[in-house]
């Protein structure tokens, strides 16, 4: 049976180092044809930390990680914590319009990227120095550091502990940028303690008393056969083919490494290649967004690949319809869990192999820790079971706050440590939670959060635009897609196609509207605010 050897009183690096020294020669990370053992991975992380230290990164520093899914991303995720610096994983597909404000807001001193990652315009800006980035000391290219880092000269298990300074577990460990309701990206700040709490609170099975573990094993064997028993006694082989800068990706990466499992890195998402990788690597625990699950099931290779190694499929990051959960359970022939979480707090709710199927298909599960989830009214008083209210959590994994945004932090966290999600939900007598809507104006497009305010603010800067409203509408593939409605100034000749082209050119992929419609007049309130609920009722050709 695999065990957790870490505690939230460590730093990310200490926790990783301790796990690595215990598992030493076990495989830790696979990317393409390369598999690194824990010893090799630790050696490379420590070597990168030394390289970063030589380039001026130290306690209290911040480094942006602008890399696609790769081994380098994993090294770069853990190495800064050895130095007491925070890592800032950023979407490597961002255009300079979105990237520069993030780099500026973060106050990062270094960027770790690669020659082919930022587009040419961004690379020139970064290399020539940008007036809004006075803190930036260096842009480091992975291809120029790779040889030094991967030559493995460092004796990871002998001296890496004494190489680096002592760091408080409550110091900031990571900044995760997400879309913002106010139109600009905001950073969720986590400490080492909150990150490690997030990685450990989902391990509910191994926290059970031994007799309960035996009962669980017998039930698992009865329902899914002996492969379940074999799987649970071995460190898991896991895969999440999502971008690693997202919770869906890095959450799975660190959750796997801290239990001594092997994480399979996918450089990109292609349904056939992901299925091939599941078969080849004998993946047991697969985490997907509902859109990814749909794409895999519709792949021409789905029936041809041997997926019998799978024992858990976790569907998360976007609402999952009961129909999709049912279809996935039948297609993947393993236990399907629905999980719910947020960057601000990590994983919080989940269904398990033993929850009734109706609950698994219709809810997002129960709280991972008892009495740490509640539904509240507008005054933040708990409402009776069965009533709609805002979903709130109080867990050790709650973020420190939003960077440079005290008002926003105060609105999301209260003095007792509750985090208010902005999701509208109902909790039943058994504690199962069903999400019924959103209090904040947010769209989840293909698993990625997008705030319409960001798109609206951009469109309103364009000549000829009088007013704009972006909103999500149901979509069979993406879950929700983005619609943009635009009212033009008198005499303006802009077309929907022209607007679409501008958005494609200047907005990052996740924020580009899927549909643009020019309307004569947007319905507004007396104060000029667009009444979006009326837009939902407008007669629109959905194609």
């Amino acid at each position: 049976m695999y065990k957790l050897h870490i505690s939230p009183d460590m730093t990310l690096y200490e926790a990783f180092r301790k796990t690595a020294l215990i598992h030493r020669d076990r495989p830790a990370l696979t990317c393409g044809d390369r598999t690194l053992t824990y010893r090799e991975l630790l050696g490379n992380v420590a070597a990168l930390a030394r390289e970063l230290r030589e380039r001026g990164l130290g306690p209290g520093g911040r480094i942006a990680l602008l890399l696609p899914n790769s081994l380098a991303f994993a090294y770069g995720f853990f190495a800064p914590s050895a130095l007491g610096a925070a890592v800032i994983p950023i979407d490597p597909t961002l255009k300079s319009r979105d990237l520069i404000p993030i780099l500026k807001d973060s106050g990062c001193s270094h960027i770790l990227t690669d020659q082919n990652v930022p587009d040419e315009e961004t690379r020139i800006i970064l290399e020539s120095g940008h007036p809004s980035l006075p803190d930036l000391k260096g842009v480091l290219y992975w291809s120029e550091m790779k040889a030094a880092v991967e030559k493995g000269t460092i004796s990871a298990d002998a001296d890496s502990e004494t190489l680096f300074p002592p760091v408080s577990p409550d110091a900031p460990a990571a900044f995760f940028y997400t879309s913002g309701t106010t139109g600009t990206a905001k950073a969720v700040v986590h400490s080492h303690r909150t990150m490690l709490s997030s990685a450990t609170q989902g391990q509910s099975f191994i926290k059970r008393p031994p007799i309960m573990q035996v009962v669980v094993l017998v039930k698992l064997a009865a329902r899914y056969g002996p492969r379940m028993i074999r799987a649970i006694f071995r460190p898991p082989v896991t895969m999440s083919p999502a971008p690693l800068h997202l919770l869906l990706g890095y959450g799975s990466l660190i959750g796997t490494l801290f239990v001594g499992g092997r994480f399979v890195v996918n450089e990109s998402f292609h349904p056939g290649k992901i299925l091939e990788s599941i078969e080849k690597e004998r993946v047991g625990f697969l985490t997907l967004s509902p859109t990814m699950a749909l794409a895999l099931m519709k792949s021409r290779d789905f029936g041809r690949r041997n997926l019998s190694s799978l024992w858990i499929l976790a569907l998360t990051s976007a609402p999952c319809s009961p129909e999709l959960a049912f279809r996935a359970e039948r297609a993947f022939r393993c236990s399907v869990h629905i999980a719910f979480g947020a960057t601000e707090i990590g994983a919080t709710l989940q269904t398990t192999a033993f929850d009734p199927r109706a609950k698994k298909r219709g809810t997002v599960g129960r709280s991972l820790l008892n009495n740490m989830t509640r539904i509240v009214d507008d005054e933040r008083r708990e409402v009776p079971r069965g009533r709609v209210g805002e979903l709130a959590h109080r867990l050790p994994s709650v973020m420190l706050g939003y960077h440079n945004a005290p008002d926003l932090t105060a609105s999301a966290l209260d003095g007792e440590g509750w985090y208010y999600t902005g999701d509208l939900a109902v909790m039943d007598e058994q504690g199962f939670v069903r999400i019924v809507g959103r209090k904040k104006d947010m769209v989840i497009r293909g698993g990625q959060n997008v705030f319409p305010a960001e798109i609206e603010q951009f469109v309103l800067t364009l000549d000829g635009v009088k007013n704009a409203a972006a909103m999500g509408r149901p979509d069979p593939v993406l879950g929700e897609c983005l619609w943009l409605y635009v009212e033009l100034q008198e005499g303006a000749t802009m077309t929907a196609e022209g607007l679409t082209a501008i958005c494609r050119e200047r907005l990052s992929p996740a924020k580009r509207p899927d549909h643009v419609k020019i309307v004569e007049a947007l319905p507004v309130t007396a104060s000029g605010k667009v009444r979006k609920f009326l837009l939902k009722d407008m007669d629109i050709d959905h194609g």
Partner: protein
Amino acid sequence: MADAELSYPEFRSFLAAALGVAESELRPETRFFKDVHIDSLRLLELLTRLEKLLGMELPSDVAWEIRTVDDAYQYYLRCLRDRRT
């Protein structure tokens, strides 16, 4: 609808509407990712429209494999031929 073959200009109109792109931007050699910055999620959505047009199920892999407008048109013609035979 399923059996009526679209000419290239008609298919280009279908593609432009499905992707929210001006027809003038779509030439046979136009690359979805690099030239008109369409992501694979959007192409996955295009596929569902293509399924409706053809009246048949299509594998999701295609969304990651068709690189250009001409790829998409040739794929459409191939599906139509397969459907008829």
